[in-house]
């Protein structure tokens, strides 16, 4: 069992490795693009939320715009649900996507709107597989040590979108995925249990 897993992962690694070599040049161009994308998005967020005169409804709208501009929200929501996505009925999927978006906005909007002088700098990029780039940044706060944040950026439809955020080595996607799986499992594998918990959280 273990050997088979090992063999499979080695085979997968080899397959990726051999295909990655010819595209190394393309990759470095794409890494630069991904870094530029993060840079632009970050500056836009700072410019938006450094203005403290923006009324809250407008600030929320701006946050939502930036969220969709920067993040592949449908991808993230499906990835986070993992294997349960396919087990959900179309109606459950629709409900889940709506609740997930509300949760994201509720979780992160205030952190951006209450912006208090943080700045960031890009510290490096690293290809992740064929499609993705990790853009490493350091968030410098007015007080306290800087925070290392890596953005997993995927090239998509000629542009870029963030599909995961890793804060000091902790993946937000992985954390949420394990959290959601735990809720579903404790409800005997029923997705309605998660939908109910999400509804309670966002209301």
């Amino acid at each position, binding site marked *: *069992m*273990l050997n088979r*897993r090992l063999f499979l*992962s080695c085979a997968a690694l080899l397959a990726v490795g051999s295909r990655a070599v010819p595209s190394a040049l393309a990759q470095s161009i794409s890494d630069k693009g991904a870094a530029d994308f993060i840079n632009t998005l970050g500056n836009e967020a700072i410019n938006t939320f450094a203005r403290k005169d923006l009324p809250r409804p407008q600030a929320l709208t701006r946050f939502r715009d930036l969220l969709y501009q920067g993040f592949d929200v449908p*991808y993230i929501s*499906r*990835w986070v649900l*993992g*294997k349960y*996505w*396919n087990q959900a009925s179309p109606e459950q999927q629709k409900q889940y996507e709506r609740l997930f978006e509300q*949760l994201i906005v*509720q*979780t992160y909007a205030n952190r951006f709107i209450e912006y208090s002088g943080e700045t960031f700098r890009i510290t490096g990029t*690293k290809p*992740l*597989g064929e*499609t*993705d780039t990790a853009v490493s940044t350091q968030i410098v706060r007015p*007080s306290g040590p800087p925070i290392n944040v890596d953005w*997993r950026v*995927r090239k998509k439809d000629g542009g870029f979108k963030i*599909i*995961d955020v890793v804060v*000091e*080595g*902790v*993946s937000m*996607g*992985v*954390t*949420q*995925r*394990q*959290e*959601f*799986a*735990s*809720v579903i499992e*404790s409800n005997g594998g029923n997705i309605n249990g*998660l939908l109910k*918990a*999400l509804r*309670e*959280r966002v209301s």
Partner: protein
Amino acid sequence: MTLASLSRSLLRTAATALVLATAACATPSGDSANDPLEPVNRAIWGFNEGTDILLVRPATEVYVNAVPDPVREVVHNFLINLTMPLVIANQLLQGDAQGASDATGRFLTNTILGMGGLADVATEARIPYESEDFGQTLAVWGLGEGPYLVLPLLGPSGLRDAAGLGVDTVADPARVAAYASGAKGALWARAGATTVDTRSQYLGTIDDIRRNSVDPYASLRSLYRQRRQVEINDGKATPAEQPDFPVDPAAPKR
């Protein structure tokens, strides 16, 4: 209980722990929560949450609001410096010569130039800090994390890390010195200060989890494990542990 039977039962416990840990090591991690004691862990977690909400968090709030930033920094520096002998020992046990040399450099610099560890001169001098403990050393030696454990008052852990914590606690030179000089009260003061200092670093994070998580217990479990992995790898990413992000997330490989 005679001494012989006590040592026998201790030995048995140790052997059981080792067997459990080895078995856990052979278990593929994957997406499984590896939390066979979940009901017990959840109960202890609930108790810890209660203690935190009623006692630790309010005390930390008072500390953060009443004590100015620079003083809290001095407290933090001093507490970290007290742990450095253990960090040095664990770096050596992990065979990390550079890490051991950095840790020694930090300890000497801050103890001598930083007035007994009150000032963090070493960071100014760009000597890097890595947090190390015996749980990490066991991981470097190849021991798997084992089942997840929530320790009363101490919070998230695992079989390996709890064993490591036990070893660190017994081996801690500061503790040995305090016992030798009969200054056990100093250990309690240190424990209290460490609790409030550590808690103050996570005020926002834990509030966020409580506010936004649909299963705070599972979130904390995931956060703890991911953080530990980063600490074990000394902050370096390990590609083998990267999660899989397929083109179509709705068609998982597993």
